[in-house]
């Protein structure tokens, strides 16, 4: 009959429960044990069903043609052609990163395009939901093909700025440049050496980083690119792609 001085709330509730239902302690424990075993044995039954539902439900229908026409700089016909190509390769209407990497790798058979494709994917996936829908795709293309030079440079800056903090650090640039060199593959002339990407980054920073603070901001970037004839000319290169 001597009850301990302190009891936890849970303890009191439990004893109350037991007294209400006339269960002995042992029976209650057994029930809990059994439930725990069952839940351990079949842990993700609930999850797997939900997973399946999710997979089959990933099916995205893009906005209407008129809306896209208004939001992008493509004509109706161009949007039709783009969508047909898009849908052919991705019938579900969205591209996930793996498919994206596969598609992009087909254009660079000699090297490994997966890292650069990863950065590209992040650049296209503006709402960062892990998949690129047709709207994302077409918006990105609209900037790249029909945008002003300012917009294109903005996009490029966004691509290089991996963590999207507004600054390009040397490490980020090194990653980007390494991924570009990866696309070349092994069989190059001259042979790719270890320090080639790093040297390339140095050159880039020498050019771009005006105030020598070790990062490149968007203004420095745009200023510098606008003063460089080569870059300006090459930005116009893909005008007539579509």
């Amino acid at each position, binding site marked *: 009959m001597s009850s301990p001085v302190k009891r936890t709330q849970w303890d009191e509730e439990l004893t109350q429960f037991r007294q209400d239902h006339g269960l002995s302690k042992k029976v209650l424990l057994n029930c809990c044990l059994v439930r725990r075993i069952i839940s351990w044995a079949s842990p993700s039954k609930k999850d797997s069903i939900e997973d399946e539902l999710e997979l089959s439900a990933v099916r995205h229908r893009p906005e209407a043609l008129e809306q896209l026409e208004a939001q992008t700089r493509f004509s109706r016909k161009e949007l039709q052609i783009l969508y047909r*190509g*898009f849908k052919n390769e991705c019938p579900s209407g969205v591209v996930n990163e793996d498919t994206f990497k596969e598609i992009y790798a087909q254009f660079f058979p000699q090297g490994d395009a997966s890292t650069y494709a990863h950065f590209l994917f992040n650049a296209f996936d503006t709402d960062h939901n892990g998949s690129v829908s047709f709207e994302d795709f077409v918006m990105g*293309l609209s900037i790249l*093909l029909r945008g002003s030079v300012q917009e294109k440079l903005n996009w*490029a800056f966004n691509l290089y700025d991996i963590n999207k903090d507004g600054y390009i650090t040397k490490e980020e640039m090194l990653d980007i440049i390494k991924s570009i060199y990866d696309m*070349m593959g092994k069989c190059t002339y001259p042979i790719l050496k270890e320090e*080639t990407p790093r040297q390339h980054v140095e050159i880039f920073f020498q050019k771009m980083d005006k105030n020598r603070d070790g990062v490149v901001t968007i203004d420095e970037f745009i200023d510098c690119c606008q003063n460089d004839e080569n870059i300006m000319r090459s930005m116009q290169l*893909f005008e007539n792609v579509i």
Partner: protein
Amino acid sequence: MAAGVAAWLPFARAAAIGWMPVANLPMPVAPSNKNKRQDELIILNVSGRRFQTWRNTLDRYPDTLLGSSEKEFFFNEETREYFFDRDPDVFRSILNFYRTGKLHYPRYECISAYDEELAFFGIIPEIISDCCYEEYKDRKRENTERLMDDLEDNKDSKLPNMTFRETMWRAFENPHTSTMALVFYYVTGFFIALSVITNVVETVPCGYMPNQRDVPCGERYTEAFFCMDTACVMIFTVEYLMRLFAAPSRYRFMRSVMSIIDVVAILPYYIGLVMTNNEDVSGAFVTLRVFRVFRIFKFSRHSQGLRILGYTLKSCASELGFLLFSLTMAIIIFATVMFYAEKGSSSSKFTSIPASFWYTIVTMTTLGYGDMVPKTIAGKIFGSICSLSGVLVIALPVPVIVSNFSRIYHQNQRADKRKAQKVQKARLARMRISKSGSSTAFLHSKRNGLNQSLELTLPYYKMKLSPQGSLEEDQQLKKTTSLLESQHHHLLHCLEKTTNHEFVDERLYEQGYLQTALQNFPSQSPSLSSEEGITGTCCSRRPKKNIQPLNATHTHSHTHNLQELSALHIQCGEQQPLNTSRSSLNLMSDESGSLNCKSSGLVTTAIISIPTPPSNNSRASPDAPSPPNPEAPPLLNPSSTDVVKISAL
């Protein structure tokens, strides 16, 4: 490039804008699609059934009939459609190939009709997708076998001028060819049977001699049996000698199984003749007689089924081996257990473990002679376990062997397994080649000096060339690459410019790799020469002296004073870049010299090095801080820029 992926090329090119701020060199000019049409529907009328598709869909595969300009031959002016007088059902699969990139083989189609359609439309069967490829190959194999059988049947009838020897050999192999052969066939069969029966009857005890016990017939009628034996052996010897004479390759014949059986069958008789009736050796002589039973194997020439059985056993060697191995394991285990279980009981027959082997074998095969039985309880328990497991162990591999036999018997495939594997390897190789075709296509176009590597900064350079030269270039460009390909190549070229490195193929890469190894060890001069020797041998057909010009031209983009058309040496080896592109095949036949590897070890396309006016230096200076190439070989002589080298194709 895969079908749908071609639609993403605009995206890949647009994404290349991401490289532009990083690049230090100017980018090449994009190929212009002058004759860019709006995408239109075209109508393909195949024997009355109209199919419609986009023109771009068909352009995805420019090396087929529908993708190239060859379809213009079928254009019907009045109805403004393309008319093909072919099977519309098969055309469905072909058109789906353009749409989806996968070629399927419909099972209800006849294989030879399908093949003909594929050949007509210029599609190689190797790209049939995996889901249908096995079916296709099986049907094709069956068909070819049937055709070959038919051919052989026809071939057997008449071949006028064969030598006597060849006729004899054919008579031996196919008894149905002539009456003589048939007669010979039956006679030898009869004598084989006779010989076997004689051997058997020889040992039967027949009749009593009054003062002796039962004698076998062989000892009673010695002369009769001896005469029959002699006759049979005569026939067999003659037959063997005739086969030996007629065989096209005597050595191979003598090594073959049947001939060994023949020899083994008749040898005991001759040995018996030679040896006297000596008491010592007669024991051995009797043993030799056992080999006479091998004559029964001579029947396998007469029976197809027997040959198939033999082949089955040979091909199931692994299953048989497994059976034997598992049995041996089980026998040893159970024999040991039984021995120790029965050790306690007195007067036990299980005297040793090898003695228990006999019990185990008899029990496991459910024979159960009863000459050895366990007496203790433990022994009986283990004995029952032994017999139960015996059933299992034996029953498991047997169905495999049986199914093997039935399969072989029904399909009668001898070497097709081996042939199929070879074909599979060839198919995979071809698919790999076509998949890597895009990369080799790019290198190929570079080699032919046809990509427009004109830099943006110097458009006037093109004007410097004679107008004729540029025209020819344009024409050649149109001839060899479709718009899609040229756009793709432009993309790869931009990547090269961005990274300031070039794509090369494997051999040039290995060569360059060896060269960097060379230059990294300049102190060891004797090894230098030996390494050069290695270079010379591993890139087998390259004469060593051409290493120098290679370096000179390759570094053209890195030195500021050279302006050249793309000039690359071609490392020709056995592995020609296989292009399934029809246009490039045409190219190869026209420019017979360009890739004619067999004649010369090293082929050089036109190398024109023209020194640039010094005013370029200022513009080219952004190039100067491009990553220095320490491996730029010291062999390069800048003075070579003054030389205009044009080597013949």
